[in-house]
């Protein structure tokens, strides 16, 4: 049974003629223990899709099923790492994680909770920064606290909403490796939303492009059959990596690109960039 399933999900904002159709006919199945990456343009509706998965928004059409049950509203069975820094600035790293632990494991003793928070802090290598507040941490450290907070509630599924989007390239690479390692150790079902194709390939078992908006939808999925642990330096020379990358970019620049009115179906006419990317 799929852990998470979306059937014909659509979402618009506004009503009538002024309505903006953000997502249409989204179909997605995520298996237990699988890591799926959804790659798309900025502003294509990635965050809307994530909000739907989190339960923060309800779809206009279609349904979302989590472990066989229709999803109703948000809940701590989904651990979300938000795109922006969503740590509460008046709480320390430790207390931010404790907030989630207190809420999910209400019956635990104080000692159990403390041990649990410590375990996740050490998992993201921030034991030394436990007593620091978010503004005293670097961007990368903050997102590591966010990951720890999301995982500390033992969620059924981990939702990563462009978690590394605001970081510099080097920090981003380090964190990608760390997330991959943490995921390998936990094997929590995960959905990553990103605008970075390479990041998707490096981390995921399956990569699915999201077409450009308005009315974005998911393109054909590509399986990533590259064995783990994946080495970011070796992987770029792997022919499988290049072929996956070309397929995904080919879709995003071709059929998945913004449709220009008055032109032929872009599925047939490829832009020069697409041909370049495919070459």
């Amino acid at each position: 049974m799929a852990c998470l399933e979306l059937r014909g999900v659509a979402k618009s904002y506004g009503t009538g003629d002024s309505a903006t159709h953000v997502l249409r006919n989204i179909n997605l199945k995520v298996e237990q223990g699988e890591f799926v990456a959804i790659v798309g343009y900025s502003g294509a509706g990635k965050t809307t899709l994530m909000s739907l998965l989190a339960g923060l928004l309800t779809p206009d059409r279609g349904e979302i099923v989590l472990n066989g049950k229709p999803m109703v509203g948000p809940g701590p069975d989904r651990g979300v790492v938000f795109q922006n820094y969503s740590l509460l600035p008046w709480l320390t790293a430790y207390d931010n994680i404790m907030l989630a632990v207190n809420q999910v494991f209400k019956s635990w003793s104080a000692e159990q909770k403390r041990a649990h928070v410590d375990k996740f802090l050490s998992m993201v290598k921030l034991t030394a920064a436990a007593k620091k507040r978010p503004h005293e941490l670097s961007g990368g450290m903050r997102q590591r606290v966010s990951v720890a907070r999301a995982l500390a509630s033992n969620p059924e599924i981990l939702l990563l909403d462009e978690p590394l989007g605001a970081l510099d390239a080097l920090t981003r690479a380090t964190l990608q490796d760390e997330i991959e390692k943490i995921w390998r150790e936990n094997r929590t079902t995960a959905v990553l939303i990103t605008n970075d194709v390479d990041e998707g390939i490096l981390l995921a078992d399956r990569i699915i492009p999201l077409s450009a908006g308005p009315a974005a939808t998911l393109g054909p999925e590509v399986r990533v059959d590259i064995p783990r642990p994946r080495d970011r330096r070796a992987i770029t020379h792997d022919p499988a990596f290049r072929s996956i990358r070309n397929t995904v970019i080919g879709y995003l620049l071709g059929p998945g690109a913004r449709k220009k009115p008055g032109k032929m179906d872009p599925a047939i006419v490829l832009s020069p960039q697409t041909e370049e990317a495919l070459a």
Partner: protein
Amino acid sequence: MKSFREKAWYLILPFFGFAVILGLWALVASTFAHNLPSPAKTWEISKPYIVEPFAKRGELDQGILRFTWYSLVLVAKGYTLALILGTPLGFLLGRSKLFSRGLDPVIQLLRPVSPLAWLPLGLVLFEKSEPAALFTIAVCSMWPTVLNTAMGVRSIPKDYINVARMLQLSPLQTFYKVLLPAALPYMFTGFRLSLGIAWLVIVAVEMLTGSPGVGGFLWQEYNSLIYEHILLCILTIGFVGLLLDRGMKLLEDRLRPAEAR
């Protein structure tokens, strides 16, 4: 880095400011304003009230700080009332578009009304001077608290509220663990401005109700033709107001999120 000389100047300049005002005061008093006591005369007549600030020689004849204390107690009561009324109102306005739409015009209408206009209404409502005074202080000073709290609540990042929703915090937990700490820095700006207004209002209120305090003293001494004490009261009111504002500012700065410091 400023040089030593620049820094010394920087510290000395305020004293020049005071000296100029004092000089103008002396000049005005010695030339055309014959009823205005000179600075030296003011000091001489006010001295007993300053050197024995807590003396109580009679109901109408007490040390300046004792009068100030009466005023502060009254302000504290009225100000507390303003916070008790203003903070929840601010939260409602910040959280609900409906409330905001419905109440904002009313607030804009009531906000500019002078304490001199509210006090008679308070007397009509409560028929006694103390509750009328508290009513006036509260109704005049609550608006900055209301508006700043509402602004603070409105500017809470959506991500924080999403975190509360994902963790399924109850409305009460969401309030105490997310909304309140996130809005607190804004609220304190409102609290500080409200305290300033409460102190401003007290003088008018005491003048009209004749209750003992620094404002009541001022009015009584005007009627007794002891003009030196008017100046003593004005300086005291200014000084206490400054201290209150600085104190609140210190608290406010400690609460401001560190990244904005």
